[in-house]
């Protein structure tokens, strides 16, 4: 049922960053995906694409351990989810999942990354504060550390969440639709930043609806629709056949040198008299 357009570089000798074997997941009697086997290599920068309600978020939740699979095994770095130490996974949720009127500053949001540690005192230690300032400086949000989260832009909020995910030096960074809710410039900046983070050896897995952003920024793509359709490099994966099987309907792919433009359906033609 699933096709691998290109064999990945995973090795059977070294454990993959993420390994799912025969995993079935669902809610009550409703099965979202069945007997899924998927490996994501260490150091990979992969994007999961697929239509709405195809099971992308359920797949992410299964990997993160917040949704228990009905059967199968999920291993992170060769270990069961219950055995991995805290902080090994960094997570950036969807921007829309949070109440932005909540009374916290950008600095407090980033500090939350430390809140799973053993420190009981509410106020941050000097080391925690220094780490937050270093990360904020690196991600370009140093100047808005003292600002209310409600007074920041979508791009700044995304970076604050990213900084929070990075405070514990995670081995795996998981992002749920980091390109939604931000403008095209912020989208490019966030993906560029993720590329830099990935170059330091952190495995990155994200979901997105933006195929063009995936085509231009990500080295690896996983097409998903209630199961694995295909995975590989965008230039090999983004074909009419695979994208039609993933999304259904007509998909048009325009290629120019290393650039892609992916569109769906037929264009709307306006007559000269239309406003």
């Amino acid at each position, binding site marked *: 049922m699933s096709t691998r357009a290109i064999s990945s570089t995973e090795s059977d000798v070294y454990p993959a960053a993420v390994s799912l074997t025969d995993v079935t997941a669902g809610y009550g009697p409703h099965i979202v995906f069945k007997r899924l086997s998927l490996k994501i290599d260490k150091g990979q920068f992969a994007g999961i694409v697929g239509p709405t309600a195809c099971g992308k978020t359920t797949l992410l939740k299964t990997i993160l351990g917040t949704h228990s699979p009905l059967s199968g095994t999920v291993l992170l770095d060769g270990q069961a989810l219950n055995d991995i130490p805290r902080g090994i996974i960094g997570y950036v949720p969807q921007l829309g999942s*949070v109440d932005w009127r909540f*009374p916290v500053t950008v600095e407090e949001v980033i500090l939350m990354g430390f809140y799973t540690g053993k420190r009981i005192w*509410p106020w941050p230690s000097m080391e925690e504060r220094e780490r937050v*300032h270093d990360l904020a400086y690196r991600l370009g949000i140093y100047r808005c550390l*003292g600002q209310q989260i409600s007074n920041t832009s979508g791009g700044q909020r995304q970076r604050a969440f990213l900084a929070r995910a990075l405070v514990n030096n995670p081995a795996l960074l*998981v992002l749920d639709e980091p390109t939604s809710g931000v403008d095209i410039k912020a989208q490019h900046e966030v993906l560029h930043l993720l590329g830099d983070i990935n170059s330091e050896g952190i495995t990155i897995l994200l979901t997105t609806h933006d195929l063009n952003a995936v085509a231009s920024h990500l080295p690896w793509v996983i097409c998903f629709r209630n199961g694995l359709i295909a995975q590989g490099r965008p230039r090999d994966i983004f074909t009419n056949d695979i994208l039609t099987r993933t999304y259904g309907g007509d998909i048009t792919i325009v290629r120019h040198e290393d650039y892609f433009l992916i569109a769906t359906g037929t264009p709307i033609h306006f007559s000269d008299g239309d406003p």
Partner: protein
Amino acid sequence: MIEFLLEPLEYEFFWHGLLATLMVGASCGLIGALVILRGMSYVGHGLSHAAFGGAVVGFILNLNFYAGAGAMGLLAVLLINRITRSGTIKLDAAIGIVTNAMFALGVAIISQVRAFSQSFEAALFGNILGITEGDLLLIGFVSLSTLTMMFLMYRPLLFSTFDQEAARVFGIRTASVQLIFSLLLTLTIIASMNIVGVTMIAATLITPAATARLMTDCFSRMLIYAWIIGGITGVAGMYLSYIFNTASGATIVLFGASLYCLSWLTNFLHDRYVLQNHLDGKSDFVQTTQHQSVERNEAGL
């Protein structure tokens, strides 16, 4: 003025009531801050009704008032958690089902055994005159426990309140945090029942916290402000109820609502003033706030 304030303290019932309202008001304010941020405002209302049903059931089983109310409150928390676990039934619906059924049980028993209906008037509407030293000890214990637990659980509480899903991924046991918080809320409600009454507890929880929210955009400051405003509301409401000879619970709630209105009006006038200055070109609001924020950052280094 001093004599006027000290005069009612000659009566033992008054300073008992004053201590009780101070502790209950402060605890309700502190817990209430998290109640409104976690979107649980209806929980306080519901749990107080469940606890009332428990107190009535406890009475016919010859149990202590607090034992019956506490057991039913605890049962309500566990049932609500169980019903909402799958996500099919949402929190507000689960509260409606569980707590109203428990309250209805209490009302049904009272209507059947009319002889003791008077005994529960205090629980419904509050009775500051009957505060015993035992009540004060219990309220003191609950207040101290709440304060201690909120301090010890500050970090997981803040993270799970702001972003529950991420908190879970980061390793916080959000279900345990929710359960402990619900238990603290239940304890606070049970300790407050005889002071402000079942019908007024929700307002005692929510109003000081909502006032504090209008005063600050900082989480820790909101908790402290809500704690202080709750305490002040309790004491001031107690004095006013003595002066005007009105029901203490109702007076406390009315005083709290007045503080909220005052805070809202101050905010409204401040925003209008800033907007007017901006429109008149006297100041650039956006630039000013950004500048202040940069200054704060640099000062914090």
